[in-house]
């Protein structure tokens, strides 16, 4: 399908989770619901739709809490979506994350048989997330949402995860997260990266031209697909003590510990990118949204400032691969809306305290396969693209075997050996967050309005 004319972005129809920046600080809650009855399920969708319409009226700058509603493939089936429409979704969404586990590297302790129930099972139908600037506004919205299903006995909450930003403003390993996000054409958000053109809307929202000049495959009928986006959520447990012990063992002193940690991430704990601050932490840079994501790797192709294998550089190599003609980085971008869960491991503690802590990784994009799955399998789990097939992401690959990590350095590169696995997948789902009109359509399914 080639699009003849550019369509204006229907911001009012798109759920806010995708194109809106998360409040900072934030608190969040993720709920998974199981629908026991299609009619009550549609009633739930009708009521959530009304909440979303109301929320939309407040506009993006209002610091109130916001809600995002998404469905798994099983969830759409439970609502009574016609088979032809269910079949029109891309294969990876139909199969679901658990079925793709081996490919994604979710094996060993990360494999679906060890996931938190009911993640990865047919019992997960609806995903609801609420994000808010503080606990009271979160409770207010969560309560409003709860009253929407309280009198629907067949709607059951099957999983819940609370999230909040740690008091340090950092995620569990100690680094600020959520900085590197693409500038999206038409989103109205301020541009953060002056060294790259904004990415086409169709890479993130269905129904618009994408970077290939086509429109991403959309489910039918059109009303269901348009303005929707695919969401991935993954609960990732982090072994912070193992991370700290590893650095303590390998570093000569505390300063070098901090440097090695920064090399693994590609940024300093404040968020200051290594290419802009190669030698020392720069808190002002880390805190400045107009500068902390405005950079490329052209001047650092050999990785003396930021190693090619650093997590953030793997996950988005920016302009580093431009001369190679084998990959178009713009086809593999993602909007991330991750949040932290669990308490911080107190400073200086090197022994695991048994507490569960990590991030709920959230992806939004139009292509599960060439965005999320590509980045995870080709760039994070694998090192072929940077010419180091034996190395995977030093921080988050989840690989079972220890990995090496090479840090280019004049005169002699440093190679960290046998980094232990630091992240375990606790479960996750592929979801579809429809636009508001699509939600209305879903709630009215008893009279399916097939498009001509």
């Amino acid at each position: 399908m080639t699009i003849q004319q550019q369509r204006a972005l229907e911001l009012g129809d798109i759920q806010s989770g995708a194109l809106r920046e998360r409040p900072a600080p934030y608190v969040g809650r993720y709920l998974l619901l199981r629908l026991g009855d299609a009619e009550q399920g549609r009633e739930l969708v009708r009521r959530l739709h009304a909440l979303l319409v109301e929320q939309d009226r407040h506009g993006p700058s209002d610091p109130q809490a916001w809600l995002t509603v998404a469905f798994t493939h099983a969830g759409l089936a439970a609502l009574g979506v016609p088979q032809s429409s269910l079949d029109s979704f891309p294969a990876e969404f139909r199969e679901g994350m658990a079925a793709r586990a081996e490919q994604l590297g979710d094996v060993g302790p990360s494999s679906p048989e060890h996931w938190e129930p009911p993640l990865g099972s047919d019992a997960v139908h609806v995903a609801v997330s609420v994000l808010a600037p503080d606990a009271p506004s979160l409770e207010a919205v969560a309560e409003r949402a709860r009253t929407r299903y309280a009198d629907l006995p067949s709607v059951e909450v099957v999983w819940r995860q609370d999230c909040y930003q740690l008091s340090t403003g950092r995620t569990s390993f100690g680094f600020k997260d959520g900085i590197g996000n693409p500038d999206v054409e038409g989103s109205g958000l301020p541009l953060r990266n002056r060294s790259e053109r904004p990415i086409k809307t169709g890479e993130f929202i269905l129904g618009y031209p994408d970077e290939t000049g086509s429109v991403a495959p959309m489910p039918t009928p059109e009303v269901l697909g348009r303005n929707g986006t695919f969401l991935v959520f993954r609960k990732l447990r982090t072994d912070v003590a193992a991370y700290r012990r590893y650095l303590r063992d390998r570093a000569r002193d505390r300063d070098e510990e901090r440097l090695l940690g920064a090399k693994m991430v590609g940024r300093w704990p404040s968020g200051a990118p290594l290419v802009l601050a190669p030698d020392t932490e720069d808190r002002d840079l880390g805190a400045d949204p107009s500068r902390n994501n405005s950079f490329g790797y052209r001047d650092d192709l050999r990785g003396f400032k930021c190693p090619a294998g650093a997590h953030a550089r793997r996950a988005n190599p920016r302009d580093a691969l431009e001369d190679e003609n084998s990959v178009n980085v713009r086809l593999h971008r993602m909007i991330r809306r991750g949040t932290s869960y669990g308490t911080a491991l107190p400073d200086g503690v090197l022994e695991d305290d048994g507490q569960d802590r990590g991030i709920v990784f959230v992806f939004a994009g139009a292509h599960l396969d060439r965005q999320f799955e590509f980045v995870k399998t080709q760039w994070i789990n694998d090192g072929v693209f940077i010419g180091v097939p034996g190395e995977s992401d030093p921080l988050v690959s989840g690989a079972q075997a220890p990995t090496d990590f090479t840090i280019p350095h004049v005169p002699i590169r440093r190679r960290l050996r046998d980094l232990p696995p630091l992240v375990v997948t606790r479960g996750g789902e592929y979801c579809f967050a429809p636009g508001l009109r699509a939600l209305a359509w879903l709630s009215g399914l008893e009279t399916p309005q097939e498009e001509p």
Partner: protein
Amino acid sequence: MTAADETTRRPGVRVGSASEFSLFFRVIPGHAEEIRAALTALQRTPGYRPGDYEMAIASIHEARFVLFDDDTRLLFATSFDGSWDAYMEDFAAGPLQLFDAIFQHTDGYAGLPDVSAVKDFILGAQVTAAAYARNYPGTVKELRRANRLREAFDTVLDDPRAEEALGHPALKPLLDEAADA
């Protein structure tokens, strides 16, 4: 390493970092001369000139175009680092366009207007190798790095002080290679 120990679920057999990729096309009747001319022209472009070693697509190990059956058919065979399946859209969006002048003389080619057209065109022509093996491990990037290293090492060995310099115990593995490097 043999083809058999790698997954064959997707078209293209992978051995280590590299996947083989073989496409069989039919030449449009009457276009034999044009397609031969297009291939001759390709052979003269930078990267394809014998001895250039700098093909536009950096992840490719080698590539060949073979006209056969009296120029009625065309084989394009290559191997590259990565999985074809993952990179299909990247190739469709850019590098394959480099071969437009050739593909336009093959059946079923209607330009490459969008990704799904490219997928259809390519997948329709692809045949998975029944046997595939490589004689060296490693990615193009590693091999280039290894070549740079070898050249540097050669330069060191050409220096009359090399033996003395390589005498240090830390350099023993290099000295072991020096005798017939």
